[in-house]
C-alpha cells in the first residue's frame, strides 16, 4: 500500500469530498448550502521531519512536468522528486527518502518556504505524501493560502527556535510534536514553545471555516449587489443569486 493510499483520508478531506474525519476524533461541522463537512483543525500531532534551507520554491516541491494532469490524485509520490531521485532513479539523500521519517506528518522548514508559483499542486503533493502541518521561519503567501485551503496549518517561529526544533526532530524521528493552533504552542520532548499562527488562519482552522466556498456562496446576494455598484460590471453582472 502506498503512503498516499494510507493517507487517502486526509486527501479526501481536503479535496472537498465528504470526509470521515471524525474518525480521527476531530469535530466536524457542516456548512449550509452544500454538504461539505469541514473539520475543525485545532490540534495537529505527529512526528516531524526537517527540510532545511531557505527559499525552497514550488518547482522543487513539485517539478512542473508532474503537473500535466487534470486531478491532484497520485501527486504524493512526486513531492520533492528531483531532490529525492537521480536521473537514473537512484535515491538521493533527502528526509523524504529516509526510513525513519516515513511516518512523519509535521514538516519543519526554514524561511520563505513555498516561494514561486501559485501551484496548489505543491501543498497537494505534500499532503498526499502525508504532511498534516508545517512549522517554519516564514512562508510565501500564496503557498500558505493554498495550505490553509486544504486545512494544513503553516505555523511560524524565529530562526533559532526552528533550528533547535529541526535538530530535535533529527535526533528524535519518532518524537511527537503537538501543535496547539488556538494556543499557538508546539510541545515536543519536555518543552513547550510559543509559535505564531496568523489570525485569520487560526480562526479559519479552529472554527472549521477554512473551506470558504459554501460560506461565500451564502453571501451571493451581497456579491451581486457589490458587482452592480461597480461601473465596469453594472447590470452586465451575470447574476449568480440562485
Amino acid at each position, binding site marked *: 500500500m502506498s503512503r498516499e493510499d494510507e493517507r487517502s483520508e486526509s486527501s479526501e478531506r481536503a479535496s472537498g469530498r465528504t470526509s470521515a474525519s471524525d474518525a480521527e476524533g476531530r469535530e466536524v461541522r457542516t456548512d449550509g448550502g452544500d454538504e461539505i463537512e469541514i473539520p475543525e483543525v485545532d490540534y495537529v500531532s505527529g512526528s516531524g521531519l526537517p527540510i532545511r534551507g531557505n527559499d525552497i520554491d514550488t518547482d522543487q516541491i513539485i517539478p512542473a512536468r508532474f503537473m500535466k494532469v487534470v*486531478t491532484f490524485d497520485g501527486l504524493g509520490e512526486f513531492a520533492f522528486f528531483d531532490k529525492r531521485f537521480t536521473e537514473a532513479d537512484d535515491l538521493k539523500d533527502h528526509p523524504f527518502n529516509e526510513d525513519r521519517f516515513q511516518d512523519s506528518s509535521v514538516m519543519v522548514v526554514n524561511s520563505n518556504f513555498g516561494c514561486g508559483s501559485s501551484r496548489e499542486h505543491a501543498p497537494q503533493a505534500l499532503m498526499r505524501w502525508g504532511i498534516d502541518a508545517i512549522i517554519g521561519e516564514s512562508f510565501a503567501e500564496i503557498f500558505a493560502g493554498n495550505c490553509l485551503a486544504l486545512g494544513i496549518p503553516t505555523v511560524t517561529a524565529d530562526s533559532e527556535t526552528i533550528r533547535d526544533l529541526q535538530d530535535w526532530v533529527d535526533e528524535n524521528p519518532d518524537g511527537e510534536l503537538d501543535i496547539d493552533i488556538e494556543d499557538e504552542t508546539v510541545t515536543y520532548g519536555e518543552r513547550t514553545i510559543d509559535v505564531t499562527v496568523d489570525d485569520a488562519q487560526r480562526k479559519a482552522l479552529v472554527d472549521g471555516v477554512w473551506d470558504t466556498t459554501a460560506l461565500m456562496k451564502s453571501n451571493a446576494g451581497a456579491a451581486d449587489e457589490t458587482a452592480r455598484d461597480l461601473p465596469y460590471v453594472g447590470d452586465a453582472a451575470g447574476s449568480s443569486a440562485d
Partner: protein
Amino acid sequence: MSDRTLYDKVWDRHKVTTLPTGQDQLFVGLHLIHEVTSPQAFGMLRERDLEVAYPDLTHATVDHIVPTADQSRPYEEDAAEEMMSELEENVREAGIEFSDPTTGDQGIVHVIGPEQGLTQPGKTIVCGDSHTSTHGAFGALAFGIGTSQIRDVLATGTVAMEKQKVRKIQVDGELGDGVEAKDVILEIISRLGTEGGVGYVYEYAGEAIESLGMEGRMSICNMSIEGGARAGYVNPDETTYEWLEETDYFRENPDEFEALKPYWESVASDDDAEYDDIVRIDADELEPVVTWGTTPGQGIGVTDPIPEPEALPADKQDTARRAQEHMRVEPGETMAGYEIDVAFLGSCTNARLPDLRRAARIVEGREVADDVRAMVVPGSQRVQETAEEDGLKDTFEEAGFEWRNAGCSMCLGMNEDQLEGDEACASSSNRNFVGRQGSKDGRTVLMNPRMVAAAAIEGEVTDVRELPETEVTTA
C-alpha cells in the same frame, strides 16, 4: 477620505463583506483561467454540484502546455492533449469565452488580458498563476490564487483575502542606455529580497516608472511575486488610457471608454496617500542586471563582481553557496563572460512586441554564436502576427534564432521546450530556480531581452551596451 492608495480604494469597492475569519470577501471583476490550474477546480465544482457564477467575467486561454512548434491537434503529447480537451470541455459547459489557438487571440494569459482590453484600471483580477500581478501595471488589483481559490471564484465570483500593507517603491531619475524595466525589478528584488514583499502590495511610482510604456510596467509588476509581494501596481495615467483606447474592447465600445475613465482616474492613489513603507531607488545608478544564482534575488549589475557568500547576511549564505555551486560561478568574477548554451526570448515577463523589437535591433545583421540554441517565443498570437508583418521574424531567423508559436514555453518547461542536462540559458523569463526550465541540472541566467539577444550573439553573458544597435530596416 483623500489619503488613500489605489489599493485601499479598489479593495473597498470590491468588498462584499467581512468573513468570520476576519478576512474580507472580495468581488472578482475578471477571472482568467488556463489549462494547468483550473481542471481540478472544475472537478471540485462538479463534486459539489455547483455552477460557474459569473461566466461573463471569466476568460480562458491555453498557454502552459501548448506546443510552440507543431500545434496541430491532437497534440503529440497525450498529457497536453488531455489537458487541452479538458479545458475545452469545461469552458463549453460553463459558457466561458476561450481564446484558443484557432481564434488568433491565444497567448500567455498575462499577455492576452491586456491585449484584449480585459485588463482595466480599478478591476480586481485573479488567475491561478502567480504572475497575475502583471495586470497591476494598469492600476488593477491583480494577484495569483491556488486551485481551491479558483473553485471559490468559479462558484461565487469572490475570493477570501486578508488586506495587506502597501509599500511604495519610488524609482526616481532616468534609466540609462541599455537599462530596462526588467533591470529595475531585478534590482528591487535583489535589494529587498525574495521575501521582502511578504505581507505587502507594491506600488511602483516615480519618474522612471511613469516614463515607461505599458509593456515595461507589465515587466515590473509581473515580477512582484519574485520579491514576495503577491500584487504590484502602477497608478493609471495617460499612458494607460492610450493603451486601453486601442484595445478590442474599447474599440468596440468607445462609449464605455468615456464612461469608465472617471472611475479609472478616481482609483489612483491620492497625492497624500499614506504608505506603510517607502523605498527609493535611483534609476540613474542602474546598469543591466543579471542573476548569478538560483533565486531571482541573486542579481547583480553585469559589471559587478559575484558576491562572496561570507559577505552576505547570515541567512543568505547557505543559499548563496549552494547556488554558486549549481551555477558554477566564482565569487569575485563578473557574470559577463559566462558561457551559455541556450538563449530564450519569451515569457509573460518579456515577450511583448516592444521587447522583441528591442532585441531585434541587437540581432540585426549578426549571427547567433556557434553551438548556441536560440529561440523566440512570442507572448501571444497577436504579438507573433504583428512581429511577422514587421519583419522581426525574418530578422531573428536570419540571425539563427528559431521562431516559435505563442506560449509559456521554456519559462517553465511544461511543453517540449526544455533545457537539457546542464545547459546554461540566457533567459528573459522570471525564475532561475533549479529545475525550472525542465532540467534539474540546467542553469538559468535572468536578464532583459536585449541582454538575451547579446548573449545569443556572443555565446556568453555580454554587456549589451558594448554591442551597438543596428536599425531594423523593416520595422
